[in-house]
């Protein structure tokens, strides 16, 4: 037992099925009599649909049905929704133009659904798709935010004039203006946060199934939050009774945000299955994933930092244009607003902050939350401009940060952008990271590189994020359409083993282990006797799912509340068995005892007694189970420092990561092995963003040029270094586990750390992500030319 509880690197319970090929991902599931759906997708970025002829396709072998948007409309199916309403500067709600699950009169991005073929096999459905004739009136598209905001730009939606979804502001403009008026120095920066494709390795997949005898519908889908999908499908899109719909998200092969959302394809599978009374299955191929999985980031930002003569930050001003893509995805509106501007204080005491965000429609794939969602973009702005300011003022970048950190004795700390930071030790993380990175001897290593003719740079990123999403009342007041609590249920069996039902969903995070550790620790049940159940709305009573590093802080807290209820009931049973008063019963690690005596009863006996209540308190219900909901009091604020060191071959522009140090404060750590794994994965995605990845659209045709792994550069093993990961633990003061969340930190910290290192090496801020060898080489050539001209 001692090595299985909280704080131990317990090996994962879920691994056996995965390493032996026995996982059950959605595409591994086949239902009797199932049919296969294949979508015909728009080859154009923007076009009016004049007509669609499906006659030939209907006659193809194996074809059961061909549906277009008109068939869907005839059944009065609602459009896909955005679940968070952002209000603009005037207080008007954002523009959320209708998003049909199959396009009716216009297609608005390459890959938009135009028709669906349902056939007895995927290959027959695919063949029939090719026989559908669509007459398009091709329109000129617009793919980037700057062009989309220009007068006369193509209008993606008639009901979103100027392609503006909203023009939003946050913070105190007047006090920020005053701060700039008295500044000794102002640093300005232009930043592009490149568009990314999330690319979980498992492509999306869904099966809709209808049982007409009971009028019930089952949906298997690759989701991070099956209950949320059930709610959206029932209440908004298909109008089904929620108690007649079961959503199962079985093993899910990664999500990173992209599997939060309600998508057209799963919705079509459900609709068609009900129509045909046969299971309908769809599995995305990788090209479809690039075309239709919600993308991430895509910001263009101008930022200004006001400083006094000593390098103290006085004010920050940020203007961002955020690309929403062709339609507003499920939580898209919240990402560049409440998940972004509220983090612009960073780890610093900047007293005045003002942000303006224009969200813009374009003829591109919808953009929504991707690992970090808004917080990486905020961190990128803050940490790039802080580094740039240090360089302009010829200050040590570590020192300028230290001068501005929120000090340890200032918590709880109210920022000027609404957050109340609950705890943190920012300077300690920086000191620790500098030690691990041997920051003091960097100059020597740089000289060494210079002798070889190479450039060397070092970059710091001191990030903060708001996780543990989220206090329902707070997000409700900001426009969220749902509550963001989590639920848990713990059920003992008569033999002493335990089911733990959680509304969180694990798609790589290892909840089956971490959550079992918590229960093992609190209830004294061996790990092997605990089964964590998730991902099925029929088994787990309620849930809100996994995103925003919330599972442990919110879902884990709900589990703790349920263990407390179990212990309370157990005390009553124990008191009866030991003939003592409940007040005299003590509980510790699975043992109930009578204070001051040697009488004791173990948890297993309590469970047995609860189900075989032959000798039992008269006024107590049998059974040993408890449910709990947890709604967090505040966000949690994980923070830390990453330091990247790079060496650049000045002849080729190839950047090698020479060292990577991460020191993170996630509060208490339940399983350090799993937490480190989360950090590694996050850093890899952050490095991917900074050096390799980027979605590219052809600006003229609107074609997606990076629609396969041939064209979109995913980080591979030989692109990446090993990482040095350190941790400090400042417990979160407002949740029972003292945890803060660790899932997104790496992806938030890494881009700024790496770009600060690369710009340090190059001696210019003027390079955008991804800093590919070609981009880096160009900067070096430009500098060589300029030097030669002098």
């Amino acid at each position, binding site marked *: 037992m001692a090595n299985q509880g909280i704080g131990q690197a317990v090996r994962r319970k879920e691994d056996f099925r995965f390493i*032996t090929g026995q996982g059950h991902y959605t595409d*591994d599931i086949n239902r009797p009599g199932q049919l296969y759906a294949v979508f015909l997708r728009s080859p154009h970025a923007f076009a009016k649909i004049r007509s669609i002829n499906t006659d030939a396709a209907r006659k193809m072998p194996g074809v059961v049905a061909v549906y277009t948007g008109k068939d869907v409309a005839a059944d009065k199916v609602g459009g896909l929704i955005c679940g968070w309403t952002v209000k603009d500067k005037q207080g008007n709600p954002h523009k959320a133009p209708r998003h049909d699950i199959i396009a009716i009169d216009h297609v608005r991005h390459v890959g938009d659904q135009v028709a669906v073929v349902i056939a007895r096999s995927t290959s027959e459905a695919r063949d029939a798709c090719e026989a559908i004739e669509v007459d398009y009136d091709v329109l000129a598209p617009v793919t980037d935010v700057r062009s989309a905001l220009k007068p006369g730009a193509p209008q993606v939606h008639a009901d979103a004039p100027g392609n503006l979804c909203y023009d939003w502001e946050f913070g105190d403009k007047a006090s920020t203006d005053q701060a700039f008026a008295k500044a000794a120095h102002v640093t300005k920066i232009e930043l592009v946060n490149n568009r990314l494709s999330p690319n*979980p*390795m498992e492509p999306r997949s869904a099966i809709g199934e209808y049982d007409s005898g009971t009028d019930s519908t089952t949906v298997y889908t690759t989701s991070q939050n099956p209950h949320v999908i059930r709610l959206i499908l029932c209440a908004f899109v298909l109008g089904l009774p929620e108690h007649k719909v079961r959503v199962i998200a079985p093993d899910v092969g990664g999500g990173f945000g992209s599997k939060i959302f309600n998508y057209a394809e799963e919705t079509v599978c459900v609709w068609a299955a009900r129509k045909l009374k046969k299971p309908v299955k769809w599995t995305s191929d990788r090209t479809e994933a690039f075309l239709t999985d919600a993308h991430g980031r895509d910001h263009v930002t101008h930022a200004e930092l006001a400083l006094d003569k000593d390098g103290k930050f006085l004010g920050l001003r940020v203007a961002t244009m955020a690309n929403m893509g062709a339609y507003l995805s499920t939580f898209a509106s919240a990402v560049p607003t409440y998940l972004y501007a509220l983090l612009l204080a960073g780890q610093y005491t900047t007293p005045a902050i003002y942000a303006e965000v224009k969200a813009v429609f374009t003829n591109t794939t919808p953009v929504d939350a991707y690992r970090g969602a808004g917080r990486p973009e905020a961190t990128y702005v803050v940490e790039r401009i802080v580094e740039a300011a240090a360089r302009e003022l010829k200050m040590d970048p570590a020192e300028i940060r230290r001068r501005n950190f929120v000090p340890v004795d200032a918590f709880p700390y109210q920022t000027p952008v609404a957050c109340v930071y609950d705890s943190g030790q920012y300077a300690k993380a920086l000191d620790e990271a500098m030690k691990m990175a041997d920051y003091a001897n960097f100059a020597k290593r740089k000289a060494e590189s210079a002798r070889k003719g190479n450039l060397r740079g070092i970059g710091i990123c001191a990030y903060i994020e708001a996780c543990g999403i989220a206090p329902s009342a707070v997000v409700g007041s900001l426009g969220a359409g749902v509550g963001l609590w989590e639920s848990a249920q713990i059920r003992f069996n008569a033999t002493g083993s335990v089911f733990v039902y959680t509304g969180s969903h694990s798609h790589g995070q290892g909840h089956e282990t971490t959550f079992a550790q918590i229960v093992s620790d609190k209830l004294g049940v061996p790990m092997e006797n605990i089964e964590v159940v998730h991902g099925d709305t029929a088994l787990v009573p309620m849930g809100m799912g996994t995103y925003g590093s919330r599972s442990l802080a919110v879902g884990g807290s709900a589990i703790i509340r349920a263990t407390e209820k179990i212990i309370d009931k157990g005390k009553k049973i124990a008191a009866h068995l030991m003939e003592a008063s409940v007040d005299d019963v003590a509980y510790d690690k699975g043992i109930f005892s009578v204070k001051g005596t040697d009488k004791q009863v173990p948890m297993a006996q309590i469970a047995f007694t609860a189900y075989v209540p032959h000798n039992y308190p008269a006024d107590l219900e049998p059974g040993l189970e408890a449910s709990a909901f947890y709604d967090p009091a505040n966000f949690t604020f994980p923070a830390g420092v990453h330091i990247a060191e790079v060496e650049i071959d000045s002849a080729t522009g190839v950047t090698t990561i020479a060292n990577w140090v991460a020191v993170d404060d996630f509060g208490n750590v339940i399983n350090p092995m799993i937490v*480190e*794994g989360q950090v590694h994965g996050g850093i890899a*995605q952050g490095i991917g963003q900074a050096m390799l990845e980027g979605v590219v659209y052809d600006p003229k045709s609107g074609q997606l040029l990076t629609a396969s*792994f041939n064209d979109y550069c995913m980080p591979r093993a030989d692109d*990446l270094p*090993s990482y040095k990961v350190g941790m400090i633990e400042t417990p979160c003061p407002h949740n029972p586990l003292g945890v803060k969340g660790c899932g997104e930190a790496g992806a938030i910290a890494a881009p700024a750390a790496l770009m600060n290192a690369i710009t340090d090496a190059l001696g210019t801020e003027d390079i955008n992500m991804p800093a590919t060898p070609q981009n880096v080489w160009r900067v070096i050539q430009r500098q060589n030319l300029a030097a030669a001209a002098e």
Partner: protein
Amino acid sequence: MTISVTITVNGQQETRDVEPRTLLVQFLREHLQLTGTHVGCDTSQCGACVVHIDGKSVKSCTILAAQAQGAKVITIEGLAQDGKLHPMQEAFREHHALQCGFCTPGMIMSAVDLAQRNPNPSEETVRHELEGNLCRCTGYHNIVKAVMAGAQAMRG
């Protein structure tokens, strides 16, 4: 039109009538219900589908089932012997080299082949050799550790 294909999969001879365009990965997943072999892309880039054909790692999405006629194929389901995990499987669990598990079968099959060819691989060799296997979750750090440890365990 269908053709008859016979392949020995995990020691079992299997004959199926399939469409000529059936890929080996489809043969395994759809005809034999061996769903441990995954499909992560359509351009032979990701390596989620790696199996062994006559002892060598091959991306099963790149060859037709008919091309494997008469061959001996081992999939992730056939790696453990007599209920005992292969040392590479053990190493992946011990070193937390998987998160969502989707890349894992292909990763392990590639790693076994790598270790057979390089019994004592350096970190650099492992990183280079794993170029054909994408993982979006782990950042590769622990995979590299696991492959080195697994190779060592295979040496015995």
